[in-house]
């Protein structure tokens, strides 16, 4: 180490120290306390909240008729709503598909064929809850495969339930 370097080291070692705030250690302990208060109860609370919300959602999905999955395109029309129902044939290839329900006094309404396995119809209905079924080739009544909401029809079969919001 030459003279200049020695001088430099001497200067470096003589640089003054910064004073630490007198309450520094207490501030550290406060931060530790605060973090523990935040992490433990809140961490558990967060998990609990997520699980609770998931449970509420599942209950609402399977045991209520709330419109959780709006599979319908609805637009306002002076008190009426436009509702588009779709039917997808999964295996067989029906020649005709119709829909019948409370909204048509259980008269069948023919659906329009969109492509090889899908049919569509746009209904004009007032807000409310309606039972309905699809009618395949004029003879086979099936509930909507895309709807989770089903109800017994009183004749040993099952109808789907359509909920049309009023908002």
């Amino acid at each position, binding site marked *: 180490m030459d003279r200049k370097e020695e*001088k430099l080291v001497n200067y470096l070692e003589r640089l003054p120290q910064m004073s*630490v*705030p007198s309450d*520094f250690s207490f501030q*550290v302990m406060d*931060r530790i306390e605060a973090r523990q208060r935040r992490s433990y109860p809140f961490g558990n609370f967060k998990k609990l909240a997520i699980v609770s919300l998931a449970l509420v959602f599942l209950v609402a999905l399977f045991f209520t008729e709330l419109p959780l999955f709006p599979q319908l395109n609805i637009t306002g029309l002076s008190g009426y709503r436009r509702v588009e129902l779709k039917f997808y044939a999964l295996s067989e290839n029906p020649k005709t598909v119709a829909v019948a329900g409370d909204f048509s006094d259980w008269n069948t309404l023919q659906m329009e064929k969109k492509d090889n396995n899908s049919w569509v119809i746009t209904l004009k209905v007032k807000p409310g809850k309606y039972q309905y079924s699809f009618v395949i080739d004029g003879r086979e009544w099936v509930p909507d495969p895309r709807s989770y909401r089903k109800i017994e029809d009183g004749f040993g079969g099952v109808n789907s339930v359509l909920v049309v919001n009023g908002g």
Partner: protein
Amino acid sequence: MTDKTDREIIVEVLNGNRDFFCLLVQKYERPIFNYIFRMVRSKPDAEDLAQDTFVKAFYALNKYDSTYEFSTWIYRIALNVCRDYFRKKKLFLYSLSAPIGDEEESEFEDFIPQDSFHNPDDVLLNQELRLNLEKAIQDLPIKFREVIVLRHLEGLSYDEISSITGLPVGTVKTYLHRARKKLQDELGEFLE
């Protein structure tokens, strides 16, 4: 204070006597705070980062390897806290020509005066030297600044610096040599 060693205090903390950690903080707050201040050159940031260092140490205490000195371990945490700070601030390539502003000068006023500053002429000379030296340290690349601060301002050994930075001792010596060379170049006239 207490007669307990660092290891004994750590055992107390790990056994649930959390307040004992305050003793460790009080013992190491000054070197850690000064090390961080030398690195980041902002008093509020240094205070925040130093607190952060101790909080991190508290929560990592169960992973503390007692084959190391606690002092080495806490410096390593402080070093990583500073590296994170620079990474976030994207200051790794901090400009070499960054001017010293009023704010920085005012922060130096907080330093505890040394004996050599009592003569008014010496004060002027030393303040100028000190500011230039501080600026030269600040302008060093981070990796050089880390070793120069640890070695010459904190007074740590090559082995301790190697353990803190994770660099081989040979590299530590090389960095120190190059850092001192840079400082000499910056301080030219003051070292004549």
